[in-house]
């Protein structure tokens, strides 16, 4: 499948936005998954609901919330501008933020499942062998759930590639800056006679999504053996 230079630009921008989004949000996703899988604290149910909010809210609502918060006069936007002189509004970084938030619930779910699959008896064994809580985490817990973390990241990456509603609401649809794959398809659909472009970009979207799903499913199976699924 041959793409025009402009179409390659769209794919490259999408990859950059999604890549930055996932790498940036991965530590947060892990921390949330760990708290939900292992934590026994007040407000756990509330946190669980909050994490899942992007999964059930209309994406346009998330986009609007980001717009309110990160606008130059908004609570976070004003602070970012004053301290660092940056804004996320109408920038690819804003697209990455929107993608990260929309991908978060899926990533937390996948990582949480893999953490819950780690046998606590193995962690006990590590403790009796002289490993403190941190050493046990690095040498037993983390390696055992690593495939789940990678699966969650791949799944989140696929979700980010498809992110549309929150992105277009928050950072608009600017070619070369915020026009990711779905936004480019949407833009092309508005122009008569660009069926070929739509077809090629849609083909890329299908290809990338299927690859990501298969990859994350294989990784989850490699960890858990029977009964381990991301999907």
């Amino acid at each position, binding site marked *: 499948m041959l793409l025009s230079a402009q179409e390659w630009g769209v794919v490259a921008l999408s990859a950059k936005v999604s890549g930055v989004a996932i790498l940036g949000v991965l530590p947060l996703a892990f921390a949330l998954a760990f708290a939900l899988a292992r934590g026994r604290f007040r407000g756990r149910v509330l946190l669980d609901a909050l994490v899942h909010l992007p999964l059930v809210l209309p994406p346009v609502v998330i986009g609007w919330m980001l717009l309110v918060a990160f606008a130059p006069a908004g609570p976070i936007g004003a602070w970012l501008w004053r301290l660092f002189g940056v804004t996320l509004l109408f920038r690819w970084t804003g697209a990455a933020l929107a993608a990260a938030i929309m991908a978060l619930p899926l990533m937390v779910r996948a990582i949480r499942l893999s953490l819950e699959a780690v046998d606590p008896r193995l962690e006990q064994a590590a*403790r*009796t062998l*002289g490993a403190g809580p941190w050493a046990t985490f690095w040498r037993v817990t983390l390696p*055992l759930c690593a495939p789940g973390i990678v699966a969650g990241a791949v799944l989140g990456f696929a979700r980010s590639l498809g992110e549309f509603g929150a992105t277009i609401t928050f950072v608009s649809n600017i070619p070369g800056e915020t026009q990711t794959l779905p936004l480019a398809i949407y833009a092309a659909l508005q122009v008569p006679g660009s069926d070929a472009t739509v077809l090629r970009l849609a083909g890329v979207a299908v290809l990338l999504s299927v690859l990501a799903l298969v990859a994350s499913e294989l990784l989850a199976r490699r960890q858990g053996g029977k009964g381990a699924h991301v999907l």
Partner: protein
Amino acid sequence: MSFDPAPSFDIDVVLARGQLEFPVRVAGGGGITALVGPSGQGKTSTLDAVAGLLRPLSGHIAVGGTVLFDAARGIDLPPERRAAGYVFQDLRLFPHLSVADNLLFGWRQAAPERRTLALDEVAGFLDIAPLLARRPHTLSGGEAQRVAIGRALLSGPRFLLMDEPLTALDPARREGVIALIARIRDAFALPVLLVSHQQDEVARLADAVVEI
């Protein structure tokens, strides 16, 4: 045979399991102390309490004069500072590590002065040298058992806890493990607290038998 002349296991605790409370008293001499009794009476819980994996409701636990737990004095060493060589009934080998890395897991954590044994030595002693590159899931029951014992020995333990070391084995293998435990006691002079419900077999092995 060189036994520790000081009392090895000095356990006087009340353990909780669900709604039930078990008082447990063990005053072991040197060598091998066997806990015997019907299942469900807290034998494994006792080993867990000595290893620091289960907090007793009250009482104290000391091994070889070192206090590991004392409710009255507020002492409760975490498991990693108790130097227990715990051979679990379900073995608990690390599935993501090779046999060699399993054996060295505790050794790598141990302070240099506690690394009294070397991998080659233990692998030779337990006859597991050919298995070092393999993963735990490829081992037979008897092989996995010996790897679990080796992992405990290499961690530089001050004492050994063994939970039903014979049940997972066929009769032919049992003789071998019984002889092995006797050799460990004699070669490494470690006090051993062992749980079994097979009275005859442990009676032959143990220097003291405690009924629970």
